């Protein structure tokens, strides 16, 4: 256990992750959003930390699970994950907690990033610099926009990646305390699962558009479902798919079923003139 406190991750590794971070959306997709991007971003780290085939397969699978956050929220999460992976590779078994902590962090960071940067700072900066552009009829507006936005983004990404790395490292510092690993595993599972509940409600946008006439007025099925429980359809879909996967249906089979189902519904929507599911 002598090598326990000697970090495997160097500053050079973090610089690499920071640069790859700018490609966080290249494989953005509806199923698991930035999952493959995360694997690409962490690839040099994972290669350094894990040597055996089994370890590498498990690490790849771990990070090919659903991942998505806001661009400004990603770097501190990457930092935390790297710290946890590093300790894990050094023999402190936190493998089960990594994904829970990831989910626990990606939710709130997406919320904060989207509202603070996406909905406030960026539009504000755009508005001001567009006004400057119109007034001066020069490229000053565009240049100001690019310099301010990217200046802040570049500094934030590097600083917050390091902050996240330190945060993750400190989390596992008092390793001698009794059962700390057990506590981290269970605590992060609780927090992660609670956030997962909200994520399903907010990021699975399944809605029905069926209306029917009952007596004098037209009723919307979605309103009735909302009266029972808002988000019922997203929850049912997720639980149904989770059950199928546990019944050893492959994800590929499920994706095939989803597309067939979606196109059947779309064709029925069109030819029956109803909106069974809307987007």
């Amino acid at each position, binding site marked *: 256990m002598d090598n326990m406190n000697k970090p495997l991750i160097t500053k050079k590794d973090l610089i690499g992750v920071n640069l790859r971070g*700018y*490609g966080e959306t*290249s*494989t953005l*997709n*509806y199923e*698991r959003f930035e999952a*493959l991007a995360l*694997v*690409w971003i962490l690839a040099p780290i994972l*290669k350094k930390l894990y040597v055996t*085939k089994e370890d*590498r*397969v498990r690490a*790849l*699978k771990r990070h*090919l699970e*659903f991942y998505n956050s806001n*661009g400004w929220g990603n770097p501190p999460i990457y930092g935390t994950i790297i710290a946890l992976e590093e300790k894990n590779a050094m023999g402190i078994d936190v493998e*089960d907690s990594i994904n*829970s902590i990831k*989910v626990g962090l990606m939710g*709130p960071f997406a919320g904060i990033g*989207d509202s603070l940067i996406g*909905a406030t700072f960026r539009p504000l900066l*755009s508005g001001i610099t567009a*006004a400057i552009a119109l007034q001066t*009829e020069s*490229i000053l507006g*565009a240049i100001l*926009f690019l310099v301010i936005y*990217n200046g802040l983004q570049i500094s934030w990404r590097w600083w917050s990646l390091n902050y996240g790395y330190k945060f993750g490292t400190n989390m596992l510092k008092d390793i001698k305390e009794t059962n700390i690993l057990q*506590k981290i595993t*269970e605590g992060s*599972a*609780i*927090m*992660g*699962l*609670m*956030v*997962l*509940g*909200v994520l*399903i409600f*907010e*990021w*699975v946008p399944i809605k029905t558009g069926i209306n029917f006439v009952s007596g004098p007025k037209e009723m919307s099925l979605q309103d009735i479902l909302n009266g029972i*429980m808002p988000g019922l359809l997203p*929850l049912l879909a*997720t639980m149904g798919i989770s059950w*199928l996967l*546990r019944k050893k249906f492959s*994800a590929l089979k*499920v*994706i095939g079923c989803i597309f067939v*189902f*979606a196109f059947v519904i779309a064709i029925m*929507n069109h030819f029956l003139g109803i909106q069974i599911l*809307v987007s």
Partner: protein
Amino acid sequence: MSSIFTALTVGLVAGLCEFTTYGFSKAMFGRPLVIGPAIGLVLGDLRMGIIIGATIELIYLGSIPIGAAIPANAAAATSISTALAILAGLDVAEATVIAVPVAVLAQLTQMLVWTLNAGILHMADKVAETGDIDKTARLHYLGMGLWAIQSFLPTFLAVLFGVGAIEWLINLLNNELPFIINGFKIASSILPALGFGMLYNMMDTKNFKIYFVIGFILAAFFSGSLISVSALGVCAALMHVKDMERREKRAVDKGGT
């Protein structure tokens, strides 16, 4: 409408700028404010590009991608408006209206890339079984390739064949074959459930299901946001840890007496 050379130039400049949105760099060159002057510059009327870019920037100010919602494509709208204004002499208002079908086409092709990327993801799932980290990670570059094509194509086609051709295509898709776009949209609304289903199965190892139920109820019935519920999640986690400590202490005390 124009020579293939003009179409290539406009397509490449627009494509390079828009590539920064999803492809690589996140540097915001795809904002109308930037892409307008860029197209203006290559077509020889920088001033027009600046005015159109800034005008559309103000129109699209509030349109931001949140979660999986893709707003109508402001970058393609700007490049085509600017090209139309400079090449065909339209005024700013006319150009922005005529550019709308191209913005819709670009939005649809973005949706298509989001869908195709799920295919790349499943290729990665397969390669991951071999434990080859490099080979798995390299698939990410395919996504960059798709974004490069997506950023270039709508603007290039619109300049080459004219906006009328794009309008015809959009009309065909919207009016004659609406179930194609709708099918993709419905599938895209269900696909995240697959991602979450896999994640749920992986996280639900410790039998803490009840906390998942609590999180969902807080969101569904109490309009709990991601931020508020995660704050509660931290509290719940700390309470659980306190409880564990209490039990440990009791076990130690019992052992002592």
